[in-house]
């Protein structure tokens, strides 16, 4: 058998193949049968041959015995030859009592040794003296004849069977041709003429319809059904093709529509992204502007004349305009506008977990419900769309578009919903940002207060000892690094204890404040740190101030306090409040740390205290 891909497969009728197989199998069967029958025949033939041998022996027994008795050896030989010529006798052998051996064979070529075991051995007795054995006759089966007979038998059977097989094969071929292949060929021809398209003549077998259906009928019916189905299929295919063609024709438009819709979508997404992007790292104070931009984008996208956000104010029981774009023409402050719930149709009431979607187009005002008219009137427009804005499931506000009606089942509905969501986010964000801004400011204020509190003397507002410590270290290092001058003044209100005792602590505090004021007024330059170290003791850190200048400044200070003329009745120095000042300046070779400098200043102050209301300078 050739492969399917073989280019041309020669045609060979089924009947031929069938006959070939029938012949082959009948040949095999014939051979096997012939073998079996030949085997049986062999046994039969052998028995038959033995009978013939017995018959032959019986026929010649007396004459042979007589010949032997009469020593008529030529006759015996002739008789033996005769015996040997008996049909199934291959060889005859005569052994006389007197030791003679006569041998006769049918075949000249056969050996005279008898050729194996004799098939028959007969004693020959004298015709005159029956007790006298004159010889023994041995007969051998003619194996060749036996084989020839078997051959002939086998050939006869073979021939018969072969003829039978041949006739049977031919009959089978004829029957197959008549019953099957003729019709199969007809079916093949019919199938060859079948064209897709117009309905053909249905397949009909050219034969008398047998009473029972057979495979051919089944085949014909199946083919007819197939053909019919094929036809239907083709018709359907055609209609589908037509549809497809039409569809294809409309496809360009569809693609265009789709492309534009996609483009629109993309645009929308781009817009949304742009809108949302603005909120990234947006300074809180600009949040509202960003929301306005978002609304502008929405309005532009949906072709709305105006787009706005209404936030519900639960306390005020109404909607406030959170943002609107473009801004209201009349320039009114939006915060002031409140759409009171009482003025609104009930469908706009914020209800938790209930979406609001109202789209109104006044193209046919007559059909509109009253509420819609009210809404249109409210917005002063011909068409509008109002969508709820939800944050965490709660309706917190409304997004409205003026001049356009986007119905909830339109293609833009989803986008609008998304916009509403974005708007919700924007609102949320805006609120959050605003809250954040406020919180930040509060925090900053608190921090500043805290810092002031921690570094300044609460009574006088001057730097306290802590800040002074920080500043002195800083300035000392800087002076050491730069080799710049640094001076420090130590001040002490003279007889302040007596002042307190005389005037009370409140007056004392006031005195301290006034001295502090004086200090602040004198030392306001950058880097100059006047500080209250505790009680009535003050210090001033003077960077970049040389010793002479420091002394002078100390004098100025003493002078300033003197000039304030604060009464101090209990003072031993004067009637007014005075101060003593010790000044010290950094000497690089001497002062390893600021404390030494401060000690110098302290020592100077101590000396000044000896006289009070004076300035003493460390040397």
């Amino acid at each position, binding site marked *: 058998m050739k492969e399917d891909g073989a280019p041309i497969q020669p045609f060979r009728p089924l009947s031929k193949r069938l006959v070939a197989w029938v012949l082959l199998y009948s040949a095999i069967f014939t051979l096997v049968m012939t073998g079996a029958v030949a085997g049986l025949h062999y046994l039969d033939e052998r028995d038959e041959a033995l009978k013939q041998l017995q018959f032959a022996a019986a026929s010649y027994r007396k004459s042979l015995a007589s010949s032997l*008795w*009469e*020593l*008529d050896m030529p006759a015996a030989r002739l008789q033996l030859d005769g015996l040997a010529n008996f049909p199934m006798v291959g060889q005859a052998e005569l052994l006389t009592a*007197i*030791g003679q051996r006569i041998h006769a064979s049918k075949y000249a070529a056969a050996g005279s040794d008898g050729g194996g075991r004799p098939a028959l051995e007969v004693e020959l007795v004298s015709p*005159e003296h029956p007790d006298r054995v004159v010889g023994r006759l041995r007969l051998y089966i003619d194996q060749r004849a036996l084989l020839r007979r078997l051959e002939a038998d086998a050939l006869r059977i073979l021939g018969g069977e072969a003829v039978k097989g041949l006739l049977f094969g031919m009959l089978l071929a004829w029957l197959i041709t008549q019953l099957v292949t003729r019709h199969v060929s007809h079916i093949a021809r019919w199938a060859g003429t079948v064209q897709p398209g117009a309905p053909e003549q249905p397949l009909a077998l050219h034969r008398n319809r047998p009473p029972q259906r057979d495979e051919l009928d089944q085949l014909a019916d199946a083919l007819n059904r197939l053909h019919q189905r094929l036809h239907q299929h083709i018709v359907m295919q055609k209609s589908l093709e037509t549809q497809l063609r039409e569809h294809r024709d409309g496809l360009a438009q569809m693609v265009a529509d789709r492309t534009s819709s996609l483009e629109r979508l993309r645009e929308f997404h781009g817009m949304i992204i742009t809108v949302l992007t603005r909120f990234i790292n947006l300074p809180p104070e600009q949040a509202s502007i960003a929301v306005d931009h978002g609304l502008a984008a929405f309005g532009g996208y949906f072709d709305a004349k105006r787009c706005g956000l209404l936030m519900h104010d639960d306390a005020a029981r109404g909607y406030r305009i959170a943002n609107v774009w473009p801004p209201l023409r009349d320039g009114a402050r939006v915060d002031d506008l409140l759409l009171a719930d009482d003025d609104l149709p009930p469908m706009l009431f914020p209800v938790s977990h209930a979406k609001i979607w109202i789209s109104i187009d006044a193209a046919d005002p007559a059909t509109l419900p009253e509420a819609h008219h009210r809404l249109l009137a409210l917005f002063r427009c011909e068409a509008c769309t109002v969508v709820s804005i939800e944050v965490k499931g709660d309706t917190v506000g409304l997004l409205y578009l003026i001049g356009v009606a986007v119905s909830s089942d339109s293609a833009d509905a989803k986008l609008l919903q998304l916009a509403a969501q974005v708007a919700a986010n924007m609102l949320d964000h805006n609120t959050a940002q605003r809250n954040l801004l406020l919180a930040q400011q509060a925090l900053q204020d608190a921090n500043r207060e805290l810092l002031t509190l921690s570094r300044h003397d609460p009574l006088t507002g001057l730097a306290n000892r802590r800040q002074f410590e920080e500043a002195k270290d800083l300035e000392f290092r800087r002076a050491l690094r730069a080799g710049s001058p640094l001076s420090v003044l130590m001040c002490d209100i003279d007889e302040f204890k007596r002042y307190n005792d005389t005037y009370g602590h409140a007056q004392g505090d006031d005195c301290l404040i006034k001295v502090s004021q004086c200090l602040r007024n004198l030392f306001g330059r950058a880097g100059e740190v006047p500080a209250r170290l505790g009680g009535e003791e003050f210090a001033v850190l003077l960077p970049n101030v040389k010793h002479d200048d420091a002394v002078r400044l100390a004098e100025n200070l003493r002078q300033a306090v003197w000039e304030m003329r604060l009464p101090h009745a209990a003072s031993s120095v004067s009637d007014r409040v005075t101060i003593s000042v010790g000044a010290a300046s950094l000497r690089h070779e001497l002062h390893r740390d600021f404390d030494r400098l401060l000690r110098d200043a302290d020592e100077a102050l101590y000396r000044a205290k000896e006289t009070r209301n004076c300035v003493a300078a460390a040397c």
Partner: protein
Amino acid sequence: MRCPFRPFVRILRQTAAACGLGAALLAPPAQAADFSVTFINPGRSDEPYWRSATRFMQPAARQLDIQLEVLYAERDHLKMIELMKQVALRPRKPDYVILVNEKLAGGEMLKLAERTGIKALFAYSTLEGEQLIEFGPPRQKFKRWLGSITPNAHDAGRLTAEELVRQALKNRVVADDGKIHVAAIAGDKATPTGTQRLAGALEVLTTHPAVVFEQTVHGNWDRARAKEQAHGLMARYPKLNAFWVASDLMAYGAIEAAEAAGRTPGKDMLFSAVNNSPEVLQARIQGRISALAGGHFTAGAWALVMLYDYHHGKDFKPLGLDLRPQLFSLLDADLAERFLTRFGDENFSTIDFRRFSRRLHPQLKQYEFSLPAVLK
């Protein structure tokens, strides 16, 4: 011929060629013969017995002015009939035919002779038994059947058997039981000559008190076959002392077998024979053959004498149409010696055949046909 006398036989054959059939046919008679006779010889032209028969007839024919023609059938009885047919169809037919009822073919030949008007005389053997019933006696149903002259074969058997027993007893050739164990090798079962010889022998052998007769076999006048049979018989009967043999050739065969078996003919194994060929005579003289009868070969010549007489008006009818004279004679060594001396060359022309004719010798009451008579 396979015999120990090969050179001698060759001479005989040459002689036969010169004087036999050809000579008889071609040689014109010296003087005008009285009548013509054709002898259809059943034997072969080189067969001693039948050759002797012819040779013995030839001088007789010459002396009696008979034109003799001898046709050999070469031991083929069908050919005998064929030869008779040829003779009968000849334009010039012989006056007489001498026929031999060899293998019972005589009847057919007689019919041919009767139909073509040739007078026939049987010699050596004649129609007997059933044949005789069919054909009837001579000169009745078959007018041209003149009669017959046959040797008394029974006598031959009897004579030789008696002599064999006598010789055995004389030479004490007996078995350990003191008896003579004898087996017979006869001729064939068909020819009367053979059967009668055997019958004569059996008459003696089966009745003689000193004889244990073992068995008869038929050698068919064949030497080789007789040899084989003798061999077989000796094997079968270890006590065997003697063979009665119906002919000289078969006797030679038996002797060969005995010699091959280590026996000495004439000493511990005796043989008898019938015939008077030079070979057998020689054997008789040597003692290899102990009993021999012969002379029957002369029958042909005596038939010529009878035809001569008949032709010349001296019919033998008064003596009987079926003559059975004492043609056989026992040949002892002396007689054999004499016969050989005189007829060793088979030249019988010294015999005066005319003296046996009753026409020429009317004083003869009977025909005195015998071998001793010839030798006188």
